[in-house]
């Protein structure tokens, strides 16, 4: 049986449909790969980096920040590093951020993925406002918590006495010694990683995590009543009363109801 030849229009439409089909398959595969490849929750970014989601959109992966860093702290993620490809990061245990006062890595960024305004205070760059991560202490492996004297992280901290303080308490095991325990203060810590770099334990007992990973969140419904600024959030607040069948009566009345018959008898 002889088949009729396809008309040009039909051929065109079928070919377009084939193209769209290929594109859809490719698009889904591509998206699935990207979704996996961009997830890297434990990566530490250069100072002044935008929040990770925006940073991944905005970084053009040119490496100018890497070249500007005088300590070779920053690296571009290579294929095989299991980090979003081509983006800058650092590993503080190897080389921490030395918190240069002029922050050379930030103004060179052409795309704004490193946002100069986020580390500018009154028109001047201030590296102390950087937010690369947060130091976290594992009290189980920190030898200061065992009672052995060590203040390596405290001494290494570039914001000495603010980001890490040492708290004293009695060592009841010996009865005559003191614990000198390091404590990290999240409001001052920049996540530079000098402490992690200096830590004397085999695997660092103090280490940097991205803030989103290291910190919890109480939620906006908790208000510190003793904190004037926090309390002021209540100023314009108004309550919403919802009445249901159960809540129409007061709780006590509700609980006492249904006994009338018993008491009357």
């Amino acid at each position, binding site marked *: 049986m002889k088949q009729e030849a396809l008309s040009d229009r039909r051929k065109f439409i079928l070919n377009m449909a084939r*193209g769209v089909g*290929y*594109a859809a398959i*490719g*698009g889904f595969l*591509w*998206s699935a*790969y*990207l*979704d996996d*490849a*961009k997830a890297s929750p434990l990566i530490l970014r250069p100072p002044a980096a935008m929040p990770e*989601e*925006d940073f*991944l*959109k*905005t970084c*053009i*992966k*040119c*490496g*100018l920040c*890497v*070249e500007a860093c005088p300590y070779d702290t920053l*690296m*571009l993620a*290579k*294929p*095989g*590093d299991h980090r*979003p*490809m*081509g983006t800058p990061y650092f590993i503080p245990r190897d080389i921490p951020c030395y918190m240069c006062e002029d922050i050379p890595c930030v103004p*060179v*960024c*052409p*795309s*704004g993925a490193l946002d100069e305004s986020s580390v500018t205070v009154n028109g001047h760059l201030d590296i102390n406002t950087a937010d690369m991560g947060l130091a976290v202490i594992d009290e189980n492996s920190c030898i200061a918590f065992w009672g052995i004297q060590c203040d390596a992280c405290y001494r290494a901290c570039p914001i000495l006495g603010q980001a890490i303080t040492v708290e004293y308490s009695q060592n009841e095991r010996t009865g005559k010694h003191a614990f000198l325990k390091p404590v990290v203060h999240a409001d001052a810590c920049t996540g530079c990683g000098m402490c992690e770099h200096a830590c004397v334990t085999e695997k660092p007992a103090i280490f940097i995590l991205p803030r989103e990973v290291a910190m919890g969140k109480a939620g906006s419904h908790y208000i510190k009543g003793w904190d004037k600024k926090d309390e002021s959030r209540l100023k314009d607040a108004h309550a919403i009363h919802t009445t249901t069948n159960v809540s129409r009566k007061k709780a006590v009345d509700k609980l006492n109801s249904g006994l009338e018959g018993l008491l009357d008898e």
Partner: protein
Amino acid sequence: MNKIWSNYRYLILRRFVQIGMLVLFFGANAWGWKILEGNLSSSLLFGFIPMSDPYATMQMIAAGAVVAADLLIGVAVVTLFYFFIGGRAFCSWVCPVNMVTDSADYLRRVFGIDRAQKMKQPIVRNARYWILGLSLIVSAFMGIAAFEFVSPISMMHRGLVFGMGFGWAAVAMIFLFDLLVLRNGWCGHICPLGGFYSLLGKFSFIRVHHLEENCTLCMKCKVVCPEKQVLHMIGKESLPVLSGECTNCARCIEVCDDDALRFSIRDFIQNKKMGE
């Protein structure tokens, strides 16, 4: 010696430019040279002229990024250069992958692999434009510059400057694909960056011109051309190569022994007359 120069002069110049740029980029990272810093995604010439990849920036904007003015100036510099002057010259004069695919193409000819593969080509040359469009859609949906995350071009130039990692595998893939699967497969069929520059450079001034009266129909030009379809006028008409897919690599010019091909500035007036 003179023959070598006349038959390879543009090839030698292109390799000089390609390797020279990589050396300058490498020097900037390794020894702090201030001549050409960054990489092909975005760079700084002499410390103050910004140059940025317009296709990468398009993907970033599609992904929803609000990019800084520095980047847009860099994009303008690059876009204007290729739009008015270079055409698709990025592919043959700058991109390091060109050296990989050219060597694959050369070996294909040496081993006669083309003669062994008589099948229909599995991918059409227009695939690159589909991939270009798709990359922008995927960028918008995934909130990330889609091609930049998988680009073997970026892996190669970034790798050569900042450290290769497993990037060599991507380079090897392209080489083997072009050598064994599809002639001019990557640069001529798939690469969306090449597709982007084909569209951008369509109207540029520098064009290869064919002089039909000199042509002896030896077809050496078609043997070496990585985008054969652009040379449709060979031996038929004296026309400039107007397709944006021509990479201005100039191999056709230097292999021609009869001076039937040469570079020239696009002649708008003449074209107008011919159109009348």
